[in-house]
C-alpha cells in the first residue's frame, strides 16, 4: 500500500491564547489517498471547517496544534509559513461556501485566475490571461472570453462558484478542499457544481476533502465518510457502509431525522437537545447528553474509534467491535 496523500494522526487544534484556548479539534485521525474523496460531515461547531483550515495552514491566530498532519509526507503542522504558502494554491487548494466573500470584488475574474498562475507557476501575464480563459471554459462558463473581463458581482452564484473552482484547479493541485461548496446554491445549480467537481476529479485525478452538513450531498460525492461531533470523529468508513448501516448513535440519528421523499412519516425522529459547545464539552463521550443509549459508563472516558467492519470504525461504547 502506498503512503496516503493526506494523513492525520491525533490532530489537535486549540484556538485562543495559551491557557484560555478552546479545543476545537480534540484528537482526529483520518487518511486520504490520491484521487479519492473524503466526505466530512457534522453540524456547526464540530470542527470540520477547522480541519480544512489546519490542512491549508490558515487557522486563525493565536492557536496551538498537536499530533501530526502529513501531506505528501510533509508534516504541515510544523511547516514554516513560507513553506505552507508555496503548497497552497500549487499543491492544495480550497473552495468555500460563499464565493462572493472569497473573490476580490474589484478585480476581474480572469485576472484573479491569471494571478494564480503568475504567482505559483511564474507564467508570463499574457499567457496566464489566455490560460485563465481556457480554465473558465473548462469549468463550463459559456462565452469565457467575455466573462473573464467581468467582476464577481456581475456573475450569478453558480458562476462565481465555477470561477472559484477554476482558480482552485489552475495549478493542478493534488488536493482540493471543498468546504460546503454548494450550500449557498439552489438544488439545480448544486447538481451542476457536483457534476463539475466529479468530472474534474476524474480528469485531473485530484483528491478531495468534501465538507458538508448535507448527508445527501456527501453520499453522492464521497468514497469515505468521517462523521464529526464536537471536535472528534464518531464514525469513519466507506461512504455507503456508513450511510446504509450507521453504527454510531449520532450518525444513525442524523440519518433518521432527515425527511425522506417517498416515505412520509407522521413524526420525524429527532435528536434531542442542542449541539454541544466546545467550551463546555463534557468528559467522556460528547454526545452522551443527547444519546438514548447512554449510561454512566459513557461519561467516564472518551470512547476510542473501534473497528466494526472492514475499514469501518465507530467511537461508541455500545457498538460491538468486529470479531
Amino acid at each position: 500500500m502506498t503512503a496516503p496523500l493526506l494523513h492525520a494522526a491525533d490532530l489537535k487544534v486549540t484556538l485562543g491564547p495559551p491557557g484560555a484556548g478552546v479545543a476545537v479539534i480534540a484528537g482526529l485521525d483520518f487518511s486520504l489517498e490520491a484521487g479519492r474523496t473524503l466526505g466530512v460531515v457534522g453540524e456547526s461547531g464540530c470542527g470540520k471547517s477547522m480541519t480544512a483550515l489546519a490542512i491549508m495552514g490558515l487557522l486563525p491566530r493565536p492557536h496551538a496544534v498537536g499530533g501530526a498532519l502529513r501531506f505528501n509526507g510533509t508534516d504541515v503542522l510544523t511547516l514554516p509559513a513560507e513553506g505552507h504558502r508555496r503548497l497552497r494554491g500549487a499543491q492544495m487548494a480550497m473552495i468555500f461556501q460563499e464565493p462572493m466573500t472569497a473573490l476580490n470584488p474589484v478585480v476581474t475574474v480572469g485576472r484573479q485566475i491569471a494571478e494564480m498562475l503568475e504567482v505559483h507557476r511564474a507564467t508570463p501575464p499574457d499567457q496566464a490571461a489566455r490560460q485563465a480563459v481556457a480554465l473558465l471554459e473548462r469549468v463550463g462558463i459559456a462565452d469565457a472570453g467575455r466573462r473573464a473581463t467581468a467582476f464577481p458581482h456581475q456573475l450569478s452564484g453558480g458562476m462565481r462558484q465555477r470561477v472559484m473552482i477554476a482558480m482552485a484547479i489552475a495549478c493542478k493541485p493534488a488536493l482540493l478542499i471543498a468546504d460546503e461548496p454548494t450550500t449557498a446554491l439552489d438544488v439545480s445549480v448544486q447538481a451542476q457544481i457536483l457534476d463539475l467537481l466529479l468530472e474534474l476529479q476524474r480528469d485531473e485525478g485530484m483528491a478531495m476533502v468534501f465538507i458538508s452538513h448535507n448527508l445527501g450531498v456527501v453520499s453522492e460525492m464521497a468514497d469515505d465518510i468521517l462523521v464529526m461531533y464536537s471536535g472528534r470523529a464518531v464514525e469513519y468508513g466507506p461512504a455507503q457502509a456508513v450511510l446504509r448501516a450507521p453504527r454510531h448513535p449520532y450518525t444513525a440519528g442524523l440519518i433518521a431525522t432527515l425527511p425522506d421523499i417517498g416515505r412520509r412519516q407522521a413524526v420525524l425522529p429527532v435528536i434531542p437537545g442542542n449541539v454541544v459547545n466546545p467550551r463546555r464539552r463534557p468528559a467522556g463521550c460528547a454526545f452522551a447528553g443527547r444519546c438514548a443509549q447512554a449510561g454512566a459508563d459513557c461519561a467516564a472516558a472518551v470512547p476510542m474509534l473501534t473497528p466494526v467492519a472492514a475499514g469501518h470504525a465507530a467511537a461508541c461504547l455500545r457498538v460491538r467491535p468486529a470479531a
Partner: protein
Amino acid sequence: MSALLEARDLSVSFPVGGGWLQPARQVPAVRGVNLALQAGEALAVVGESGSGKTTLARALLGLVPVSGGQVIFAGQDTATMPASARQAMRRQVQMVFQDPFGSLDPRLTVGGIIAEPLEIHGLGTTATRRARVAELLGLVGLPADAAARYPHQFSGGQRQRIALARALAPAPQVIIADEPLSALDVSIQSQILNLLVELRARIGLAYLMISHDLAAVHHLADRVATMYLGAVVEVAGVEEMFTRPAHPYTAGLLAAVPRLGAGKRVPGGTLPGDIPSPLAPPPGCVFHPRCAGATARCGQEVPLLRPLDAGRAVACHHPLTGAV
C-alpha cells in the same frame, strides 16, 4: 371551501436603475400569479432563488406594493378593505423568517418579544398577556423561565421556536414561513419540522411555506406550487407533484435533490443553466432554453397555467405524463 388568502392575477415589480432625467426600469418579480390558500391547509411554494417566491409572500402580507392584480383576504380585496379589516388581517396573517438571529429584537426579553404583537393589537391585559406568553412558550417547547431571558442566550433552533411563539401570539389563521429551516443545524431541523406539523394539528393553522428544501416540503405540505421567473408553472397535491411532476422544471428540481445511500453520483442529466434575468426574459415559455423537451412552439407561445387533472394545473405545452 372558500379561500382564506388569495392572489388574483397578482404582479409585483421593482424599479431598478434610473437617475436624473432617466426613468427607472421595472423588473417584474411576480407575474400574474393566481394562488389560493384554503383555511387549515399547508401550501408550499418552491423554486430557485429569483423565482419570486419570497416576493409573492411579502406581497400577500402587504409588505411590498402590488403593481397589478389583487390580494384577497377572507373574501375582501385588501387594497380597498376598511382600515379595521386591514388591522384584523394583520392579526390573522403572521410571518416567520429564515434568520432567527436577525428577526428577534436583541434588546427585548423573550417575553417582551412574544407579548409585543398582543400589545400592538390591544389584546388582553398585562396579566393575561403574561399568562398567554407562558402558554405560548409551552406550546413551542420552551421552559416558562425563558420569558425573562434575551434572544442571545438561545441557540438557533430555540430562537426559531421563539419566533414561532411570537407569530402564534395573536392567534392567527395563517402563518407564512419563509425558509424557516435553512439557517438551522440538521439535527435541529427535524425538531422544528415536527413542531410545525404538531402546531397545525393542534391549532388548525394554515401554512404558506416558502422553501427550497424539497424533502421538508414533502413532509409538511398538502399542496405545492412551483414558481419560475415570477410565475406559477405548476400546482398539485404533494404526492402527485413528487411522484408525477407534470412540468419539466418541477421534474428537474426533484431530480436534483441528492439521494442518501444511493451510491456515488454519476454526472449528467441535470437541469442546465441558470434562471434568466427578469429584465430580459426569453420569448415564449421562459423555461424553454433550459428544457430538454422544448419544441419550436415553446420559443414562440407563452404557455398558460391550465388544469391538467383533479386539483392540478400546469403551464407547459408538453406536460410530462410518466412517473419519476
